[in-house]
């Protein structure tokens, strides 16, 4: 299990949201501005990495029957830490994400990775698994945010980029973002729940299309190689 393969798995071939299809609640709920998306993605990345390392470190002393309870306690501990840190240092984000920060506890990605990966793997690979799966999750959130914000309100980087006071990044959630076309022309329905379901559905379809196409290409290449080999033999 090398790092490069893990990187590709986390981001593309085994992406938590688009391929494993877990952890969708928050993905659809909070992707209305880029600020929320990046904040949520990074929180999950940090929690996932910490949980992976800890669970992998104690995997040999966990009794099998109560492992889920122990996983949940470890996860809830890290979620509480991140929740309190956000409340203290980035209150705007904590307010915008609201109940979805404590709800990371029941996000299937984290318990799923613990169950499927860290339980059997040493600390090193578990750490990278956490980072790359977290990155894959963050990427999906960013794509969703960009699409929904652009088509819904004609904006890019709402809450994060402050254009009015010079071109700078803000962390207090007041940045207006870059207005690409006037807000009244946007399909504001995309920033409502309907848009969350629709955007994720379409994104998933695109992913399936791409994966299928690359699989077909690979198959064709293998077939061609086999034919060449056959001809050479003859």
């Amino acid at each position, binding site marked *: 299990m090398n790092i490069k393969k893990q990187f590709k798995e986390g981001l593309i071939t085994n992406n938590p949201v688009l391929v494993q299809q877990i952890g969708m609640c928050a993905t659809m709920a909070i992707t209305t501005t880029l600020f929320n998306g990046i904040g949520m993605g990074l929180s999950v990345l940090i929690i996932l990495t910490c949980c992976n390392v800890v669970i992998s470190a104690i995997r040999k002393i966990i009794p099998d029957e109560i492992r889920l309870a122990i996983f949940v306690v470890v996860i809830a501990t890290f979620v509480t830490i991140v929740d309190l840190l956000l409340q203290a240092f980035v209150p705007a984000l904590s307010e915008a994400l609201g109940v979805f920060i*404590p709800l990371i506890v*029941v996000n299937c990605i984290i318990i799923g990775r613990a169950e499927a990966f860290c339980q059997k793997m040493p600390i090193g690979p578990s750490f990278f698994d956490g980072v790359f799966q977290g990155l894959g999750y963050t990427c999906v959130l960013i794509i969703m945010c960009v699409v929904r914000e652009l088509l819904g309100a004609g904006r890019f980087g709402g809450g994060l980029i402050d254009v009015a006071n010079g071109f700078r990044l803000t962390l207090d959630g007041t940045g207006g973002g870059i207005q690409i076309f006037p807000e009244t022309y946007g399909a504001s329905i995309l920033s409502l729940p309907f848009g969350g379901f629709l955007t994720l559905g379409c994104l998933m379809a695109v992913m399936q299309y791409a994966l299928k196409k690359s699989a077909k290409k690979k198959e064709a290449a293998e077939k061609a190689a086999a034919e060449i080999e056959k001809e050479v033999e003859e």
Partner: protein
Amino acid sequence: MLSSIITISLGAILINNFIFSQFLGCCPFLGCSNKVDTAVGMGLAVVFVMGLASAICWVINEYILVALGLEFLQTLAFILVIAALVQFVEMFLKKSVPSLYSALGIYLPLITTNCAVLGVVLLNVQNKYNFIESLVYGVTGGLGFMLAIVLFASVRERVEFADYPECFQGFAICLVSAALVALAFMGFSGMSIPV
């Protein structure tokens, strides 16, 4: 009192439906909506657990966490209570109502990771509901979940036979049809109840 209960119930079932406007509990919503029968079973289990969890967590929050000044442990305490509760409900049903137990099957243990359950408990605290209001919000939130999942299961049974692009197979077409059901539920969002 009565008016606040009506407001909470209508809000939880229709206006702020847990799935279609708050996105809580989407995983079991998409996972268990293949057939109307399983959807009804899942819905019933969720109503039961959400009501019970709201009541128990309210008591624990009020008399243990707040009394001792340990509010920062809420997330940890609530998830443990829910996990234990689900386990107890499972044992109780297995012993005394085996027919319901076998009907619910695998869905019972899965409820622990349903974010609607933890969500309703956290929202009870956030909205500062009293005991009765928490209980009502839990039960009606569960009913809203059940309404959504049963409606969606019947939509999905039709979608099975529809002719859609190949790449939309599986969850993708489910999400798109869920979007359309959510669109229908948006009609309730203009409703407001005079208190």
